[in-house]
């Protein structure tokens, strides 16, 4: 059995590390926020407020501590020194859902756990997001034939980003988080009313 020697994926282009002060500022999203707000037609003030709030929200996503199974260990690994989710301001894992913005559904959602996951989600204040991590939470995964497992957490709560993997490696988590940040950029009333297009 030969190890995989070829690499078929074209990596998504590695982001350049910001060096100059301007690039660093750009990397935080401030300039694009301002430019985007200027280009927008319609209610400039509203869209700007939207942009500012979106920026704040995507910069400080506080997850709720809710590990379910195997993926929870990788969730811990994401928060730990090697991967350090704190770089995105996300290391404040709140034990109380009242103070959290983001829920990682990390692990198998069993039938018995499902109402509690739903309850936890409902206890979180708006705006809130859900990332479903791993095969079990996405579709039931390995246990989708089992009598005791819910086939996908999106059956009970809306999911924003799905991260496949069993469990996904920490970089894959971070990639999922980056995808969510991209998504949050385009939210808000302006987007809802068609102004932010």
């Amino acid at each position, binding site marked *: *059995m030969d190890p995989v020697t070829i690499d078929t994926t074209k990596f998504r282009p590695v982001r350049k590390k910001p060096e100059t002060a301007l690039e660093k500022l750009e990397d935080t999203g401030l300039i694009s926020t301002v430019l985007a707000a200027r280009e927008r037609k319609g209610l400039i003030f509203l869209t700007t407020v939207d942009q500012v709030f979106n920026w704040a929200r995507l910069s400080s996503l506080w997850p709720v501590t809710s590990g379910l199974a195997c993926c929870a*260990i*990788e969730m811990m*690994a994401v928060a730990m*020194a*090697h991967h350090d989710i704190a770089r995105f301001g996300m290391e404040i894992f709140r034990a109380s859902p009242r103070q959290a913005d983001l829920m990682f559904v990390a692990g198998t959602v069993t039938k018995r756990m499902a109402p*509690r996951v739903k309850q936890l989600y409902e206890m979180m204040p708006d705006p809130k997001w859900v990332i479903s991590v791993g095969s079990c939470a996405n579709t039931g995964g*390995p*246990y989708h034939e089992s009598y005791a*497992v819910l086939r996908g957490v999106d059956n009970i709560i809306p999911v924003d980003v799905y991260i496949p993997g069993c469990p996904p490696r920490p970089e894959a988590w971070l990639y999922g988080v980056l995808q969510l940040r991209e998504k949050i950029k385009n939210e808000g009333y302006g987007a809802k009313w068609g102004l932010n297009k």
Partner: protein
Amino acid sequence: METEELLINMGPVHPSTHGVLRFKLRMDGEIIKECTVVMGYLHRGTEKLAEMKTYLQFIPYTDRLDYISAMPNNYAYVKAVEELAGIEVPLRAEYIRVLTVELNRIVNHLVFMGSLLLDLGASTAIMYGFREREKALQLYEMLCGARMTFSYFRIGGVRDDLPDDFMSKLNEFIKDMEKRIEDYKGLINGNEIFMMRMKGIGVISAEEAINYGMTGPSLRGSGVNYDIRKIEPYSIYPDLDFKACVRPECDSYARYMVRIDEMEESLHILRQIADTIPKSEVVATQKYGIAPLTGMPYTAQTYFPRIFIPPAGEAYSRIEAPKGELGFYVVSDGTTKPYRVKIRSPSFCNLTAIPKMVVGLKIPDLIAAFGTIDVVLGDVDR
């Protein structure tokens, strides 16, 4: 003084239950009067699924039982099936198996140490623990391509031989780890607050521990010198020089110290293996049956079609997993799928003692005592 009894419900989503476990506590003020453990929030029906999968297909599921240390799970299952079918494993494969299992013991104890300290409120130990764990996981990734759910063992051997630069990386890891263990000892072991929290908490005597069916480091913390690696030696353990770590104090601190000592012992074993690993095949070539379709005698190496049929019968095989005695009871009816697989998980049986252990203590003590039992909910609920 008469006080109203307070019912407190800890979990299932609670930061210190290591997953989804629920304690129903009847409290008198801050004192626990009665503790009921409610589990099953992660019950996934693994044993039922085993009846639907072939022997080979069930290997990945064993990874997900005790997800912090998956290699021993692989090993216990594979060993049970091998005993059932009477397969002999080549020596090199045995060495690789012991190597991975001992490495996983270190990983497990690192996570144990970190999460215990996190439960007690110190957030740094877990970071250090996971820093070293990441290094071990890189070794695993070199070996089998995954970080946590390895699916590396095969019936009659292991999936793949060691990669070329594995041994040098392993030696690097061992060298690094020796220094790090000193760090942990400095950070935690002597800490007065830590000792205040752990000494004399969650006491369970040796007789009680045996009666409750506790095994592994939790039992050895009660002074029972019982290590399956020593008492019922399997694999290459008789050839290795190591000792079972025992502490007589019976309390949480003893259980913690046993694990720290075990890390050093495992490092010692790894060092021996790195020196003495022999060269040979890694999958058994012994013939043990006739392929139903082609009529060819086949081995565990037979690739196509990959059907494995052990003779009808039953076997119970157990190993010393990092958390205790992990056993698989496999019943075969002579088809491609096991008739029944029963998992004797160490976490489940060790948890039995918790309600006894915590009566009269306070909630923070419950957390400390529970942390030193070191359960993983995937293993408890299966």
